[in-house]
């Protein structure tokens, strides 16, 4: 437990008949970017609102550095958050938006200028925020999160609306924050956005954690015994491998993914059946694939569970 880690334990939250959180538990450690991923409606934003003391959970609790957020005297000096980049008054300038926030924390106006410089908004700081592009608003939201120089940051979908250049900037920026020893939790509904940025991911679905692991470990685990096979004679290959108990799925033109058979056994079976092979290699999953499989499993599992319950 670090003084700047974020911990949620057994969070449950219902909105009428909808269960938003169903026993959400995890700890976010400092020093790395942690991805917080799951399909829309998986409970990411609700969890973040609970962490910030904005929503009251039906059960469970959230802590920042082992203290409930609402007990912090200067909360923005402990945890900076970006929930919704559009949450600003369009008539107020970007600088004034940060200024009132700074006043709540007893921070001087010089701190406002410092964070505006940091996110590259100095030149437009005195313009009405209503005229900002979504990317500029995201940067303003990041500036607001950085205002109290907090050791922990929590950003909800910060890549939304950013152009490719902005996405590259954001990735570098998040990594530099993590390298400074801060806790960085970044949510996204697109795993691909976090590839190469997040060192750790918490995958959620239907209000609970599906996977909580390092990215490398997760990919290795999910790649597992999958073998990629390229052959112009897919029909014969399928026949040869399924006959020996293998499971074959098409994965593109002339491409198959084989499971339930070891690589040397596949090689031997294909040789015996005289199937021409263009490529035969262990399959390495992308983070996106891992995510899709994990979240699909959640959905299927839930579907079966509901049937059993009936």
């Amino acid at each position, binding site marked *: 437990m670090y003084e700047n880690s974020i911990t949620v334990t057994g969070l449950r939250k219902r909105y009428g008949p909808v269960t938003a959180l169903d026993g959400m538990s995890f700890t976010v450690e400092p020093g790395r970017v942690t991805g917080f991923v799951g399909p829309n409606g998986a409970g990411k934003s609700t969890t973040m609102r609970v962490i910030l003391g*904005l929503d009251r959970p039906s059960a469970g609790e959230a802590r920042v550095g082992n203290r409930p*957020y609402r007990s912090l005297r200067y909360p923005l000096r402990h945890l900076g958050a970006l929930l919704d980049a559009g949450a600003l*008054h369009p008539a107020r300038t970007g600088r004034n938006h940060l200024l*009132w926030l700074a006043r*709540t924390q007893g*921070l001087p106006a*010089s701190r406002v200028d410092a964070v505006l410089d940091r996110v590259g908004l100095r030149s437009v700081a005195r313009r009405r925020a209503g005229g900002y592009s979504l990317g500029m608003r995201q940067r303003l939201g990041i500036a607001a999160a950085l205002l109290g120089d907090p050791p922990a940051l929590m950003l909800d979908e910060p890549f939304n609306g950013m152009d490719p250049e902005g996405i590259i900037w954001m990735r570098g920026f998040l990594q530099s924050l993590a390298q400074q020893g801060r806790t960085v939790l970044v949510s996204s509904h697109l795993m691909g956005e976090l590839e190469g940025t997040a060192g750790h991911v918490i995958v959620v679905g239907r209000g609970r954690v599906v996977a909580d692991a390092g990215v490398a470990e997760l990919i290795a685990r999910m790649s597992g015994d999958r073998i990629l096979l390229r052959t112009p004679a897919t029909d014969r290959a399928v026949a040869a491998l399924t006959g020996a108990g293998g499971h074959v799925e098409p994965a593109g033109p002339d491409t198959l993914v084989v499971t339930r058979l070891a690589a040397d056994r596949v090689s031997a079976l294909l040789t015996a059946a005289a199937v021409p092979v263009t490529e035969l290699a262990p399959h390495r999953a992308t983070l996106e694939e891992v995510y899709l499989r994990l979240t699909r499993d959640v959905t299927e599992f839930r579907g079966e569970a509901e049937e059993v319950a009936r």
Partner: protein
Amino acid sequence: MSAGTAERSGFARLLSAEWTKLRTVRGWLIGLAVGALLTAGVGMFIASATVCSQPGPNGSFVACSNTSGPDGREVTDRFFFLHRPLTGNGQLTVRITDVRAAQAWAKAGIIIKQNTRSGSSYAAIMVTPGHGVRMQYDFTHDVAGPSGAVSRTAPRWLRLTRAGNRVTGEASGDGRHWTTVGTATLTALPRTAQLGLFVGTPPDSGLTQSLTESTQHVGSALATARFDQLTVAGGTTGTSWTGTDIGDTGGMRTAAGGRQREGDAFTLHGSGDIGPAVSPLLPVTPIERTLIGTFAGLIAVAVVAIAFVTAEYRRGMVRSTLAASPRRIRVLAAKAVVMGSAAFVVGLAGSAAAVALGSMLLRANGNAVAAVPLGTELRAIVGTAALLAVTAILAMAVGSIVRHSAAAITLVIAGLVFPYLVTAGAPVLPAATANWVLRLSPAAGFAIQQTQVRYPQVDTAYTPFNGYFPLSPWLGFAVLCGYAVLALAVAGFLLRRRDA
């Protein structure tokens, strides 16, 4: 943080943050300025369009004016006076056997007066057709004596005694057993004052009120009273009686008074009244007439106050606010203090300008603006600022409860502005209903602007439309404050309970 930053207390930080929010949205500043302009401007417009004139000498018309009483406030002082000078202490006793007048507040009796100038100091003991024996002095003071009307079979003896600057009035049903009705101390009474009999009656009046017009019908009236058994004791008195129509100048000319003598009996005729000048019976314009734009200024300020809260909800900014300041009740309190203070400053600028410039315009147009004590005038001006401040807080709290600007504005207008407009703004509702509306609704707070005083001894239409509220200024204001406190409490409760 940096060494130069003074660590301010938590609430001061919140006030600074909320003030920063308010001042950095230009539309809100414009809205507040519009509030001040409307508060001042509507009244000034009305004042510039209100002209008062009354018939002057030789068929001309002159500016409306009223007589000033001993304390500087406007009075009406017209009656028929049969008098002679009294030097030093003395006493007059008389029997009244008949009073004929249409008005319950017609007056006949004994009066001692500083001089025959209208508006000078006096004390009098009198009988009235509808309100028994009264002792009245210096226009605003009225003490009830024995009740009952006077007739030939039930005459009434009256006695007025001067001892130094003390004047005592007594009444008797048989001329032997006397009841002291009251004692007045008149510092303005000279060594030689005028003592005698008087008769007067308020004019017959009626009032037509509708949505578009309010017309006061004033008819001339005459009262007749019969006096006998007149005795004067003590002091040095003149020997002959002089009959004078006091205050028989200027506009509303009344029927001429007069007297007949039959042996030791006098029959006197007189018209006109002795008492405080009361609107709308007389053309005195109360200063709060210049504050008629308050309701419009109040709408502008309420719109800003509501937007101050609902804009945060509409855009989700309230999450930033509450994440930065998790103690939600303090956030609401800071918003209330900032919004209330801004509205107070705006209201004070508007009401001070309205009263200063509006009464100047009224006077320029021939209106007689009622003289009121400085404290009362300041209460109306500062009270108007407070009215805007409390309304802003109420509107803000309603905005926080319903979290929707159009709904909140509708509620504030329906609950506060509309009840005011249909009662005090225009006589849409009957006076009795209007009085209940102004007791129970937040519009009761407009009472803080009232400078006119109700006098039980003067009959007139004491209706909200004429500027008379059913509750006293501070009590009415307290009703509005009660609504604001209730709304804040509900807003605070919901803010704590609801998810942001």
